[in-house]
């Protein structure tokens, strides 16, 4: 048997990869989660545990994602199948997580698009909370499902999915790559404008004072350190297939650790900027309503769709500020959603031998149908909140622990992967990388997972009825692991190499347990040039 040349698409260069990776990492969480987490956990002093978490867990796990994608060159399920014949299911769990996140994430983009338009005439009126929950969402938090369709949201949501399918169908370079190249700089310019405007608002210094005043005593609390690790983890979008898939499109000679450092730090740099913008604005609101920043500080959907419209009502030039804020939110979300859906499209392409365009349409429709059925309805907000908690918080932490423990303790592959990173990278990894992945990260994430589960079992979640939590919360566990089990039983196309890195081992032999390498070759010691493989395309 001879080798089948892997013709996987590649980014046109470093910059395209960087824009896509940064676009993926910078999402809604950077804007609406980080500022509040930092404020609640020590203010200015929070940056110490935050940077420690970034360097000891964030960047190491990011590089793990990169090396898995780069060495095994495939979608998440294919990468894990090539790592070992027993681990394909891990990749499918990651793919299904991204599928579920995509389904509800899109509706937040539809809301953001609506609110960008609402900003022009301040359509939410004097009571933005009532407008958002009653007039706009018709929110019903008790029923299991609803047939009360909100057509204005449904139409925008459908448009978001058409846009996503179009980008996906254009492929890695012309679709995701070009989109990120345009949208990421636009996002940065928009957000910088917003931050500068916020700094000149009356009372902005009050907000910044609250945000940056260090509470050093907070550093003695373990939960502050866990919050820092949690924030780094969620915000970098690591360990659930996104970064792995993106790295699978890198050229064979790519500086993995150098790219990882830039992407990780870009994400954090944007978060700190978001903290300044958000708290300068909250300071204005606190001063205008003659209350404290603590009374107006919030996070997530409440911050974006209730607190910000309230502030926009009171500030001079509010409509322009609203367009900047919700426009930024939409762009940050869209660039992230593209890379989330890419994980699923890539998995379908690999597993079912689909062409790019076919996979984009099939996956796009498979996402759009449940998205349109479940979220632009009266129960959409509650369903979104529950699914987000169970999949985006619990599900990701669980699969992160499983995947890291599998690769480090189960298969003992870290020395081999470190060797691969060092073979192609400018920043060399030492054994500290192994230590971070074998001990530090699993312990912190494991404790986080146990505490989250304990809280959910004892306290429920946000007062939602049990049947709703059972279906859209705990039931997601069955969807994730049951679905992954079924999909991992299906056969790969006969031409797919499944027994190790498909394009050679980069001079780094396998040192742990897993699939034998090169079984698809008669003579594994042969060079690509002797084999007549044309790899020029990958280097172009």
């Amino acid at each position: 048997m001879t080798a089948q040349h892997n013709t996987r698409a590649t980014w046109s260069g470093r910059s395209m990869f960087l824009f896509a990776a940064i676009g993926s990492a910078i999402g809604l969480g950077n804007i609406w989660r980080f500022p509040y987490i930092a404020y609640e956990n020590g203010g200015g002093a929070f940056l110490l545990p935050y940077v420690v978490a970034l360097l000891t867990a964030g960047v190491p796990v990011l590089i793990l994602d990169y090396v898995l994608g780069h060495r095994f060159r495939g979608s998440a399920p294919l990468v894990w199948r090539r790592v070992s014949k027993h681990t394909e299911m891990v990749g499918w769990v990651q793919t299904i997580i991204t599928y579920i996140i995509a389904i509800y994430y899109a509706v937040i983009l539809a809301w953001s698009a609506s609110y960008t338009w609402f900003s022009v005439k301040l359509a939410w009126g004097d009571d933005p909370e009532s407008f958002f929950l009653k007039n706009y969402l018709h929110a019903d938090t008790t029923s299991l499902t609803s047939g009360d369709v909100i057509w204005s949201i449904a139409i925008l949501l459908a448009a978001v999915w058409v846009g996503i399918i179009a980008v996906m169908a254009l492929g890695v370079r012309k679709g995701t790559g070009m989109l990120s190249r345009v949208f990421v700089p636009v996002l940065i310019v928009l957000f910088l404008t917003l931050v500068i405007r916020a700094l000149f608002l009356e009372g902005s210094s009050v907000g910044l004072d609250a945000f940056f005043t260090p509470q050093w005593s907070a550093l003695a609390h373990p939960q502050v350190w866990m919050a820092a690790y949690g924030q780094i983890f969620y915000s970098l979008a690591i360990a659930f297939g996104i970064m792995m898939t993106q790295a699978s499109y890198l050229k064979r000679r790519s500086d993995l650790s150098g790219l990882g450092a830039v992407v990780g730090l870009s994400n954090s740099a944007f978060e700190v900027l978001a903290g300044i913008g958000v708290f300068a604005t909250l300071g204005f609101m606190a001063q205008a309503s003659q209350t404290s920043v603590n009374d107006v500080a919030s996070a997530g959907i409440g911050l974006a769709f209730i607190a910000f419209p309230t502030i926009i009502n009171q500030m001079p030039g509010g409509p322009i500020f609203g367009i900047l804020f919700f426009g930024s939110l939409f762009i940050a979300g869209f660039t992230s959603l593209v890379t989330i859906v890419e994980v699923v499209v890539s998995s379908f392409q690999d597993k079912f031998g689909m062409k790019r365009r076919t996979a984009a349409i099939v996956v796009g429709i498979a996402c759009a149908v449940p998205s349109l059925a479940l979220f632009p309805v009266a129960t959409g907000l509650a369903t979104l909140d529950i699914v987000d908690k169970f999949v985006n918080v619990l599900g990701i932490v669980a699969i992160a622990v499983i995947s890291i423990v599998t690769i480090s303790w189960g298969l003992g592959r870290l020395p081999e992967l470190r060797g691969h990173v060092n073979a192609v990278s400018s920043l060399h990894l030492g054994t500290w990388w192994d230590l971070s992945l074998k001990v530090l990260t699993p312990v912190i994430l494991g404790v986080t997972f146990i505490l989250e589960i304990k809280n959910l079992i004892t306290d429920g979640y946000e007062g939602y009825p049990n049947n709703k939590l059972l279906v859209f919360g705990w039931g997601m566990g069955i969807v994730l692991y049951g679905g992954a089990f079924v999909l991992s039983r299906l056969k790969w196309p006969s031409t797919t190499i499944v027994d190790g890195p498909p394009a050679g081992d980069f001079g780094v032999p396998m040192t742990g347990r897993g699939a034998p390498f090169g079984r698809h070759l008669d003579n594994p010691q042969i060079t690509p040039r002797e084999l007549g493989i044309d790899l020029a395309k990958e280097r172009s």
Partner: protein
Amino acid sequence: MSTAAVIMMIIDLSLVWGLLAIATKHLASTDDSHTGTLGSKDLDDMPLYQPESRQAS
């Protein structure tokens, strides 16, 4: 703003943006085709798989 808040803001921004600037400058100064322990070796002239890779199963 209090002095402590101003100092922390400067430290926080300098730390994160400074590290980003250093990482970006470093990446810009490297050439993918020559970095790492592979140096300037051409992957096309190297064996696809090392002998140990086959033995390790």
